[in-house]
């Protein structure tokens, strides 16, 4: 595959790995967090950690939109979908995300709810057009990458005068979450979680650019390297982070120059700003309430806002007390530290959100990384995929 194979070249990876080994200071340990689930997936799928020296360790961050959606939002979506007049359209990833008491959208569908898997917002629009007697709700989730398509769907719905289309908005923002992690007592005061630098988001950054990360680099003195999702992108970003740490620099660098600019896709940002505004606070699974960490529809589009249109309530719902997803998402724990991991919680029967999506830290570790478990047990300080 041209333009893909080049970024998966094993020979170049080996060269890069040798450079990292030669550059990394053997007496120090480097802890880098990859924020995005896409990076977590690449690290696991290509066995990238096998190529790193033992003192360069990866921490898997919370950048998996499915994983950070709180139980209460799933419960609210299920309650909405059970209404006889509603057709809930959702991306397939969400179908098995656990709500309260073992519920999920797949089970709600089996129980009679009209829930349809779609591949894009346009599919949901088509359903709304084809079935004017149904209340078609699009279950919108994701970071800055998936928000512009939701904005465009809304724009199209308004232009077509679709009175039966609305959006259950769960779009969240990356910079707010990174700040939340860096501001957490674990990282800032207690130092129980060591983070020496970030691999910055790939697709998100194509939309927002590299500029929003300047604040963290400066305020928290942490280097950020924005990187693509191919394995060579990731390994090159790690090399760039090691160099920054060695030099005592904390800059925003852009490894993903083939897609990311400083200011991003300003047209997309403008479309989003037309339709969405910041929520003062929004719960992230694992991180808790994140100030200004999510978006909602602007008040003038209230008729398209499913939360208002159907007077939806988000019930307070707690994760299984033994579930460590929260600590895992913050980088405080490894998947295998959780008592539920691999016992009652597997990709087939996920208890926590990190086990649901293939981008989740637990699912990635279960699917691709378990074989490193023995190595980790022999050296408990080593992070695992």
């Amino acid at each position, binding site marked *: 595959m041209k333009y893909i194979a080049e970024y998966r070249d094993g020979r170049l990876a080996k060269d890069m790995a040798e450079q990292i080994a030669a550059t990394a200071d053997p007496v120090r340990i480097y802890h880098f967090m990859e924020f995005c689930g896409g990076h977590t997936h690449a690290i*696991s799928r290509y*066995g*990238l950690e096998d190529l790193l020296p033992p003192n360069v360790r990866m921490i898997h961050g919370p950048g998996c939109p499915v994983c950070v959606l709180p139980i209460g939002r799933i419960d609210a979506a299920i309650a909405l979908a059970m209404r006889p007049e509603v057709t809930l359209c959702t991306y397939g990833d969400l*179908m098995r995300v656990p709500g309260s008491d073992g519920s999920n959208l797949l089970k709600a569908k089996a129980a009679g709810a009209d829930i349809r898997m779609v591949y894009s917002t346009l599919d949901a629009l088509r359903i709304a057009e084809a079935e004017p007697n149904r209340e078609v709700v699009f279950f919108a989730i994701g970071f800055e990458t998936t928000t512009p398509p939701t904005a465009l769907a809304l724009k199209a719905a308004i232009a077509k005068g679709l009175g039966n289309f609305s959006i259950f908005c769960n779009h969240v923002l990356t910079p707010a979450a990174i700040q939340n992690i860096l501001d957490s007592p674990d990282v800032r005061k207690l130092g129980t979680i060591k983070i020496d630098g970030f691999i910055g988001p790939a697709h998100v950054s194509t939309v927002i650019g590299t500029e929003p990360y300047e604040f963290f680099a400066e305020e928290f003195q942490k280097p950020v390297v924005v990187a693509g999702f191919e*394995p060579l992108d990731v390994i090159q970003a790690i090399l760039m982070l090691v160099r920054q740490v060695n030099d005592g620099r904390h800059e925003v660098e852009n490894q993903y120059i083939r897609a990311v600019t400083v200011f991003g896709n300003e047209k997309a940002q403008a479309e989003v700003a037309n339709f969405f505004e910041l929520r003062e606070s929004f719960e992230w699974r694992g991180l808790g309430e994140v100030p200004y960490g999510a978006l909602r529809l602007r008040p003038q589009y209230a008729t398209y806002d499913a939360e208002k249109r159907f007077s939806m309530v988000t019930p307070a719902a707690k994760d299984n007390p033994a579930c460590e997803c929260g600590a895992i998402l913050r980088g405080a724990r490894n998947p295998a530290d959780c008592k539920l991991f691999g016992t009652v919680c597997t990709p*087939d029967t996920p208890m926590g959100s990190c086990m649901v999506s293939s981008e989740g830290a637990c699912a990635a570790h279960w699917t691709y990384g*378990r*074989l490193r478990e023995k190595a980790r047990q022999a050296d408990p300080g080593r992070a695992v995929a």
Partner: protein
Amino acid sequence: MNKMGVKAYTWKLDIANGRVDLSHGAGGRAMGQLIEDIFHKALDNDWLRGGNDQSTFAVPSGRMVMTTDGYVVSPLFFPGGNIGTLAVHGTINDIAMAGAVPLYLSACFIIEEGFPLADLECIAQSMGDASRETGVPIITGDTKVVERGKADGVFISTAGVGRVPDGLDLRADAAQPGDAVIISGSIGDHGVAVMSKRENLEFDTAIISDSAALHGLVAAMVAAGGKYIRLMRDPTRGGIAATLNEIANQSKIGFHIDEEAIPLKPEIAAACEFLGLDPLNVANEGKLVAVVAPDGADDVLAAMQAHPLGAEAMLIGHAVADENCFVQMATSFGGGRIVDWLSGEQLPRIC
């Protein structure tokens, strides 16, 4: 498929424009006409001409093999085949994976009210063609019609019997550490071909399903080194990832495979890339995975490569002792990872 008094039925079946209605399943003349004009015509052989509710055949000596299978693929027609060809090939392959020679098939059609007769005839005709090409006759069948909404066009349920060559005893628990793992050709073709025609997801591609009957290839393998073959599987739903995990768990061993060695067409790799699929999880309908004792691996592989359906056969790895029964893969990037079963559903109804 019992023969009814169809001559008394005055109206000709309007295959070009007609649709299946409930009378076609009611046991009356309409049903007799449907069976006669579509199924008997397409699948024609002495057994069906006999017009009995069952068919008889002489039983060969030795061990026999029997299998049953259901087909609910959506869409019914896809590049490289349709539900009918898939039913014939798939059932033959299930028999062939025992190393056996397939002898006879049965087919039951559950048809949704309103299904176009032209589509039904096309499917039946494809089955007849597939049956004649493979030399495995469909000797008995059944037809049911259900109300609109109770099925999705047509479902086909099959059974098949075959004879196992003397001295051959392939078992799921027979793989041993050191055995070679061989795949007969490139992976993922069927799943991607079906996906390319799915509603909401249609994309232009030259990819066609690999749907094929593998009993000829199996016969060549058995002739070249039957005593060395531990077991065979056709990696359909769940792809080779599911197949290798099943074998690993049943044989209580692990596998080490090499990503670079696994044949994968560039267009399949590209389609999987933008659909977010792992080709190891994608279905095949004309491929087999064989686990072969080390002493016979070269001969079996050579026999496969000499056969048209095994020309791209590759040795992709080995069985290893592993109490965890992990399937591990050396990635072409230079790392290692576990190849697990797919969780949940990747492609709705692909076979």
